[in-house]
């Protein structure tokens, strides 16, 4: 039995410790907002926060998440940065198919927490691990900057 804290809520899971956090969230706990894209930390669709750091849940075993705070897209809205990003995503009309966007927002939230006023280059660097096949990159940049401005982090 492994004890996880997900979006502020304690959960016990009875799975082998090497089970990736991604599949534990999706298949066992029903938190399907975190997406599967590649299984090798190549696309960022599965990004969650582990003690505030953006990690790829597809290669994070639950044994490594035990006793740490996991935040997923479902829990991000309780945080001011997360909320501002979600609002900007809607306002800018970022999503096309939308499948990658949870991971994009999680990466953007981690960026804005450590860099409240990111430059284009910093956005590109922080978001380079998140693939969007629909090609929403220019709108993602716009939305990240809009959320940053709303948070008082205007360039």
């Amino acid at each position: 039995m492994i004890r996880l804290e997900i979006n502020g809520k304690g959960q016990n899971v009875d799975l082998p410790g090497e089970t990736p956090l991604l599949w534990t969230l999706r298949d066992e706990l029903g938190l399907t907002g975190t997406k599967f894209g590649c299984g090798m930390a190549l696309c960022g669709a599965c990004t969650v926060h582990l003690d505030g750091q953006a990690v790829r849940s597809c290669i994070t075993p639950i044994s490594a998440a035990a006793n740490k705070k996991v935040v997923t897209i479902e829990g991000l809205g309780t945080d001011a940065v997360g909320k501002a990003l979600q609002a900007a995503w809607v306002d800018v009309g970022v999503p096309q198919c939308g499948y990658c966007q949870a991971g994009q927002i999680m990466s953007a939230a981690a960026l804005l927490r450590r860099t409240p006023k990111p430059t284009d280059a910093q956005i590109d660097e922080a978001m380079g691990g998140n693939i969007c096949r629909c090609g929403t990159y220019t709108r993602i940049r716009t939305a990240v900057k809009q959320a940053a401005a709303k948070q008082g982090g205007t360039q």
Partner: protein
Amino acid sequence: MKAPGDLILTNVSRRRFLQGVSLTGLVLAVGYPSLGRAEDKKYGADGMPNGWVDNPLAFVSIAPDGTVTIVCHRSEMGQGIRTGMPMIVADEMEADWKRVKIEQAPGDEKKFGNQDTDGSRSTRHFFEPMRRCGAAARMMLEAAAADRWKVPVSEVEAKNHEVIHKPSGRKLGYGALAQAAASQPVPARDTLRLKDPKQFRYIGKGQLKLVDGRDIATGKAKYGIDTRFDGMLYAVVARPPVYGGKVASFDPAEALKVPGVERVIQIEASPAPPMFNPVGGVAVLARNTYAAIQGRRALKITWDDGPNASYDSKTYKTSLEESARKPGKVVRNEGDFDAAVAKAAKRHQAEYYVPHLAHATMEPMSATARIVNGKVEVWGGFQSPQGTRDNVAKRLGVSPDDVTVHVTLLGGGFGRRSKPDFALEAASLSKAVDGKPVKVTWTREDDLHNSYYHTVSVEHLEAGVDAQGKPVAWLHRSVAPTIISTFNAEAKNEAPFELGMGVINVPFAIPNIRIENPEAAAHTRIGWFRSVSNIPHGFAVQSFIAELAAAAGRDPKDYLLEVIGPPRQVSPEMLGDTWNHGESPERYPVDTGRLRGVIEKVARESGWGRKLPKGQGLGIAGHYSFVSYIAAAVEVAVDDKGTLTVPRVDMAVDCGPTVNPDRVRSQMEGACIMGLSLATLSEISFKSGRVEQDNFNAYEVLRMPAAPRLIRVHIIPGNDYSKPMGGVGEPGVPPIAPALCNAIFAATGKRIRTLPIRDQLKA
């Protein structure tokens, strides 16, 4: 068993809808009279299976609280159709968008009309039926109010979710009128009063947010892969590594020892041609996806690779080149190319190569199926819900009436989800476990190894030019395995719908034109990929014209306009194009004025002709496809190490009148990124019949650092809604690669003829 209550995209299955009537008094949806059916005609939506339906009883229901529910029968894959299509209905019926809910239709074309969400045709085929649907609903509400007040219907008017009695100022809300409106007869089509487009509140405005935007941003949106049931088994499948191969033998023992694995089941291979059938293999069913993946690793399988075991992309490229250098089937012939080229002042030729591509939708293929009392239900992201239904029925040997296909959001489509092989896998596996719910999830490796690939092609072009460098003779040989091979293993020539994608239907002012199509055999599954054959054709044609311009020492934009010639309307039939994207040749001629228009527009907007520093350049291309006209101007910088950056792209689009201009923009932005991806990075190649790329480390796609800082989309204003609409989802892709390569030539003098560019510019 838990109902899929967490599937937000609840579907209006007939059963559920009727429940809705009895429980909540959803009233407009009370029956399914056979009125509203289209007659069989040849073009547009009329030419599609099951045509169109404009019956408000199928699409609109109103609850007593006034909530208007509008059904979207086309699949949402990022084009914004769940916003765009209901917006048309809501505008015409004077519904207040804030009180509109959207429901996704299940696969049921008899009820909703054609649902094949492909070919960039949702809006152009359904704008008019959806307008009529909304207008009919509005008139039924007006008639109900007039009855209630016992006044002539001419004295009432529906406005913003209520009906007003103009002389007295009395008002009744849509909710209060719903019951009575439902019992009104549906007005005959020729009595419908459509709104004056000047009165549109939503159509053409681009003000409405995406209906799914908030759910997507908060992680609530449900895709096929998110389907869950209590007691569901999670499956992954080991498929033959070579297309056409099969299982020779397998040992499930080790797989069954993996904790969480419950069953190992063989899926029978299907004989050629591929159709939409599963390729067969061995499935591992487990408690969760990870256990299934681990179980698959532990399987011991011996494969019989079958007839495609020697498919090798390097040698295949050589064979395509050999075919392209010899005469092939003549598919268009005007004037006398041979005589004209013999007399020409100069002769030029070039060959262009575009490899196989995989769609690589961010959501890998996934489908869930269960069977209860002989009734089959399937959930997933499908571009062809009715086709999925029919194919599942055929696979399981049941009637399509016993199959319900629930359409979730699609995590990207790009043509891949028009092929429901993954749904058939889920259905077969559910049947094998007595109808238990089974979700099949493809890993990224499965996705890249088992796609229906974009074709691979060599385009061979020759031109004779006069003393001024102007082309007088044009030969284009296009060689590529055809999508038809997926349905007929013997097919080796491009079909009319492939030739009509920018190889024969070039409306050029060149007197001697010959287009040939030598044969090419397919050795894997070939399928539609966003914009399809327009990709290689557009790349070759627009690159070659720029090469001719350079040889003539001319400005590429001016030269391109000269090759297109003066503004005129050209019959597609004159160009040998019997297909014309399925549209009427009279209503949709090839309009060189519009093609010129977007090229001139994008030239102005991009600052064509401006002086750029060394190592920078602008390139231009224009392409007509999906009955829309798109031009792109790409700006590049190439440093002394050969590193390419694309700071800015301008695109001009003439797709006729628009419903949701913001989504036209977003589709162009996305097409630009996809075009840059395939031009710079992406390639699927085969060796010993096996795909060499396993994941995004080898099958690279564009990432944010390589995305242009600026993509500017210029929509040619189209406010006349009587004019024909064009496609939007696909036609933005084809001009990107040639515009990029033309820009690279302008910056460096290096001409790219083989995609992807990858390290070809490296010093």
